[in-house]
């Protein structure tokens, strides 16, 4: 019986240890930037949720498309209604991994290059993407950033002819996350 108890306690503490490897945010920032000769369009979303598992290197993001703020209200409406169809596809997600996670020392302050690869889902279309980002560990806090291009056509997003000169074929996506330790109460 004692053995069983010990076993149980060991299992439990293992559970807690796994727990402590997770970091999360609800206020991550993702920016779209479209550059054309006609105009530059920028949209910001400061309500991105993300979890990073520093043990396994697993990384997930969820982005509510309606939370992107455009400079012009009408652009925001058209973005949601016509291009990404937010009513049909409310969320974009990324589910992937830091493949060189062993090279990142989350216990030591510093800046680390992180190779990330995984599945990006936008407008109901999933594509595998790879990019290189930066992880900064400072005073026990973890922040992550990355910049990568997204081709609009890859995700089956149709841009009508009349505005095709105003919207870039490739959108530059910037990701900036400041993580905090994950707890159930968060």
């Amino acid at each position, binding site marked *: 019986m004692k053995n069983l*108890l010990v*076993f*149980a306690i060991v299992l439990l503490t*293992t559970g807690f240890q796994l727990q402590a490897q*997770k970091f999360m945010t609800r206020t991550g920032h993702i920016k779209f930037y479209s550059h054309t000769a006609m105009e530059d369009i920028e949209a910001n979303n400061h309500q991105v949720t993300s979890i990073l598992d520093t043990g396994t290197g697993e990384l997930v993001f969820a982005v509510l498309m309606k939370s992107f*703020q455009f400079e*012009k*209200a*009408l652009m925001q409406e058209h973005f949601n209604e016509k291009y990404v169809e937010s009513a049909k596809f*409310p969320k974009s997600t990324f589910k992937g991994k830091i493949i060189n996670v062993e090279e990142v020392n989350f216990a030591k302050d510093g800046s680390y290059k992180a190779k990330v690869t995984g599945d990006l889902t936008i407008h109901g279309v999933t594509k595998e993407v790879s990019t290189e980002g930066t992880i900064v560990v400072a005073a026990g806090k973890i922040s992550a950033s990355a910049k990568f291009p997204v081709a609009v056509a890859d995700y089956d997003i149709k841009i009508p002819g009349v505005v095709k000169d105003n919207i870039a074929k490739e959108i530059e996506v910037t990701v900036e996350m400041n993580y905090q330790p994950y707890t159930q109460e968060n």
Partner: protein
Amino acid sequence: MSTLRKTLLYFIWLMVPALSFAQDDLMDILDDMEGETTNYAFATFKTVRVVNAHSIELPAAGVLQLIISHRFGRINDGAYQFFGLDQANMRLGFEYGISRWLNVGVGRSNVNKTYDSFMKVKFFRQSSGKRVMPVSIVGVSGIQANTLNWADPDRTNYFSSRLSFSHQLLIARKFNEALSLQIMPTMIHRNLVATRAEDNDVFSIGAGGRVKITPSMSVNFEYFYILDLPGYSYTANNYQNSLSLSFDIETGGHVFQLMFTNSRGMTENLFVAETTGEWANGDIYFGFNLARVFTVSDKHKKQEKSKEDW
């Protein structure tokens, strides 16, 4: 209960929290973290008008909307008048979004040399999810001033005699991406009418809607039924119900509404209460609304940021 069993139970009880932590899929944890959100319906209509009538759409805060409306002559005027296109009535209007729920507008139309202004207030927004509201509800009140020269300048004329008032409640639901419908109880009051027999007040129920045929195009319709109420039957018996069909084309910053209607006037006092054309006779006016938005301040961003949910 044996000791072993007790131990086992204890063991299982101990495991429960560990199991709940052991959600392998980070995506599931993210979903739990987010909780339920409120989804507000947006883009119920392409623009601020269904055809002649106001839609529940308001220009965003800090956005100025210019609307140029044209109604040509009657199609049944024939080839000599080029099926109405030789004549045109027009209205020039500006609308401004003071906040997400408040909008004011002014306009000038050559029909009866009418100046008009209105205030539009959004009371409820259709939503699903955390907060459920089946419809959006907007109130519009307008005042119209007929500034034609006085018919009889020699008698004592009062400015108040030039005024008409309109009050509407717009109740709309976006059923899906393609279909939106709107009900519009309407009251028109004219301070002065031409003869003693005519009613100063007109009550009407309007219905409108749109069917989106492509992401940038929709077909809209609108009908105002004049209520034949006891004591208010003159208008119902002597004027026509307004029926309009339009084809909306949105091109980025512009919305074009190409329409056929039996109403010549472009203000509520005229198209609800003084429509004379009959569709069956071919008294149909071809026309268009051209709406263009100008972002004059970045109010909408600030409002969204403050996340004020009203």
